[in-house]
């Protein structure tokens, strides 16, 4: 009887031990799989991050409309890529190709690539902004930043009544004022009517935000264009200067396009 009881007790203990061993094995196996899984995930992550060179953190690329088609703006995905050619040069004859100040006028803000991406994604897309390649046409033809339209700086140096200049200013959303009534002028002079964005000839209230750029920090073409716009009365706060220009754009390996037209 005792032996039977002992046998059953022994048998029960044996079963418990067996389950315990199985449990240990299962836990060990799960642990091993988890470790492997973590390593696998790490490897995938590392692989992806090394392959992907984004525009900025969390934004691998963006799309911009250029000449009616969508262009993907991204960086060259080769970590060994080196800039070669004209825009890799560090020195040019000065004058005229001298290093420019950070902004051509205190009323105009200077922006970098990140702000330009934001401009492309929002104001350019919404039509409330214009990205202006202010270089002469021959430069524009060699390649430009996607989404840019070419308004050579020479245009903004023309007389205020020049039809081409007038057409350009109108295309930026400004309105010609024509004859301003005596009462309206008086109200504006007294500050009772909003004249913040108005000159004698132009109403810039609905004018678009402009970003002008040229060949880079040693290029004087867009600063000249900006000064020309300011002379016409275009509000400085509606103008931004991308000083990095084509040189910095290419240095970051960003997409460029050759105009079709």
């Amino acid at each position: 009887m005792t032996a039977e009881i002992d046998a059953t007790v022994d048998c029960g203990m044996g079963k418990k031990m067996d389950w315990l061993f199985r449990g240990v094995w299962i836990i060990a196996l799960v642990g091993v799989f988890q470790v492997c899984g973590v390593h696998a995930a790490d490897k995938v992550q590392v692989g992806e991050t090394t392959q992907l060179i984004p525009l900025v953190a969390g934004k691998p690329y963006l799309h911009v409309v250029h000449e009616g088609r969508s262009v993907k703006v991204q960086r060259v995905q080769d970590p060994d890529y080196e800039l070669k050619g004209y825009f890799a040069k560090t020195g040019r004859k000065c004058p005229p190709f001298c290093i420019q100040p950070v902004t051509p006028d205190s009323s105009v803000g200077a922006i970098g690539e990140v702000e330009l991406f934001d401009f492309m994604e929002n104001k350019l897309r919404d039509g409330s902004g214009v990205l202006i390649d202010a270089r002469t046409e021959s430069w524009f033809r060699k390649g430009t930043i996607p989404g840019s339209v070419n308004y050579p700086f020479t245009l903004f140096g023309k007389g205020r009544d020049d039809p081409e200049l007038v057409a350009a200013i109108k295309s930026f959303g400004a309105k010609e004022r024509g004859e301003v009534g005596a009462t309206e002028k008086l109200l504006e002079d007294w500050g009772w009517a909003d004249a913040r964005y108005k000159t004698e000839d132009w109403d810039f209230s609905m004018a678009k935000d402009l970003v002008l750029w040229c060949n880079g920090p040693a290029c004087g073409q867009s600063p000249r264009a900006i000064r020309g716009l300011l002379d016409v009365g275009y509000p400085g706060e509606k103008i931004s200067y991308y000083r990095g220009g084509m040189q910095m754009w290419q240095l970051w390996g960003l997409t460029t396009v050759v105009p079709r037209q």
Partner: protein
Amino acid sequence: MIHPKLRFGRAPLSRCFCPVVGAVLIALPLSVSHAVDDPYLQMLDEEVTKVEGGSTDTGKEGATARPARTRGVQDAQAVTSRKSFEAMLRQQHVGTYSFYRRLPERSREEVFVDYGNGASMESLRDKVVDRYLHP
């Protein structure tokens, strides 16, 4: 007999013509040569010959925003970009985003593809509202 008015009119006309024609003749070559002789423009023209033209646009990926379900780096990019697109919507177009997040997956994807194709915010907003009202 010549009418006195005519005689009176002819004299200043002939007097006026000479200086005007002269001025035009002098100004014409000046204005034409202005662009050519502007040293800055000339140097720019010389400089541009040193530039190797070219595009780094692949030209084929612009309109593609592949579904987020499949694997691969490009898809990972698409997902991230869609995430950034949604983050942008959430931050800057709260109203549109509130409709967008209620859309079924296929409609969201459609909106994102349109975004990738360069559609304006206005048309995206219209599409979101349309898909919401007519699922």
